[in-house]
């Protein structure tokens, strides 16, 4: 571990509420240590869920990992908190351009330009304008309002991620196979590795906000704590942890020694039935993990 990273890690450990996580995750990202960067960023987002810069950082890491869908969600989260966030508009412009939607890409990039004089932004806009012209679909962009709070969510369903080039095009279909046919495959089933990194599935709260990474940041610790508790109380290997909340139930289990599966449903699904659903999802996760190994 190099010195700046070591120093910032020590600072963060000494003061978990410090905003140094932004610098630490960015430095890790720039050095290509994306898994570590995402973990730091996710913890930061969990601690500062209303900090747009934290969501922007998480989005850039997801983008570097080739997970365009997660990057899109995180940039949307940033825009909901700060509708003029330059980094989020630049990121969404990039994603839309890669998704062959230069019109929306241009809209975001031009919005970013109103708040930034980044030379790279001028070059990007010129390139996207050329694409718009080539496609003969240049609209009167100046008449298009920038994405407003609330409107940005509506655009999510329009983004054709299947057209995205690069790593995401191979990652997204395999992820969608993971819990195919399961209710809540994208918003109530979350598969993580032992370090709390998302392998597949997704989790949204009752308002539809993506909470997968924020929850993931805690789950590796929960599973380790469960294993330790069961072992020290001489109960053998842990099988599951469940929590009944007033508005929902949560079930955590380990489909394999290296993976953790979280199943969440509203309180209309009793805890016992949730455990059965989780068992079925765990079997699917084992098959999927076996197929991707």
């Amino acid at each position, binding site marked *: 571990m190099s010195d700046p990273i070591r120093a910032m890690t020590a600072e963060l450990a000494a003061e978990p509420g410090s905003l140094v996580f932004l610098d630490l995750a960015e430095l890790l990202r720039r050095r290509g240590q994306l898994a570590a960067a995402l973990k730091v960023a996710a913890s930061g987002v*969990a601690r500062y869920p209303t900090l747009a810069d934290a969501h922007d950082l998480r989005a850039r890491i997801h983008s570097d990992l080739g997970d365009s869908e997660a990057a899109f969600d995180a940039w949307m989260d940033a825009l909901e908190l700060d509708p003029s966030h330059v980094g989020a508009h630049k990121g969404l412009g990039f994603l839309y351009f890669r998704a062959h939607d230069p019109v929306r890409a241009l809209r975001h990039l031009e919005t970013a330009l109103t708040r930034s004089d980044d030379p790279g932004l001028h070059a990007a806009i010129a390139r996207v304008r050329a694409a718009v012209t080539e496609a003969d679909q240049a609209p009167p962009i100046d008449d298009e309002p920038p994405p407003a709070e609330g409107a940005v969510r509506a655009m999510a369903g329009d983004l054709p991620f299947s057209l995205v080039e690069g790593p995401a095009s191979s990652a997204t279909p395999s992820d969608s196979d993971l819990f195919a046919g399961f209710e809540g495959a994208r918003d109530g089933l979350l598969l993580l590795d032992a370090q709390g990194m998302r392998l597949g599935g997704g*989790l949204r*709260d*009752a*308002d539809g*906000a993506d*909470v997968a990474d*924020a*929850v993931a*940041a*805690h*789950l590796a*610790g*929960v599973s380790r*704590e*469960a294993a*330790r*508790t*069961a072992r*020290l*109380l*001489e*109960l*053998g*290997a*842990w*099988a*599951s*942890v*469940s*929590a*009944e*909340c*007033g*508005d*929902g139930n*949560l079930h955590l289990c380990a489909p394999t020694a290296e993976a953790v599966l979280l199943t*969440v449903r509203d309180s209309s699904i009793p*805890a016992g039935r949730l455990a059965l659903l989780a068992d079925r999802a765990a079997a699917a996760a084992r098959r999927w993990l076996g197929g991707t190994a």
Partner: protein
Amino acid sequence: MTGYREVLERVSAVGGIRGTMLVAAADGIVVAESLMDGIDGRAVAALTASLVGRLRRTTASAGLQAPTVMHLRAENGSVLAVPAAGDLLIVAVTERGANLGLARLEMLDAARQVA
């Protein structure tokens, strides 16, 4: 304290329960206990309080309310925890095959009596 013991002993009377405790959730300290021999109450208290703390943070991140019942299921038994007033936890350690449904109900009832 006697009142606490009586409440715990009612929960301990459920088949398959090896012991029950009242634990301070914030620091994992034993407040009262009704345990069979062979169970280290301090370890149960500390470990359960820590696990419940992590679960509370997890459910908060998921946008859910705080847990009202927590259940750790293991190969040879379970640990159940139910929050009570004053940031206390009713904790039960069970054998494999214990009547968990009845234990859950008794613990929820016990939590209401702890004020």
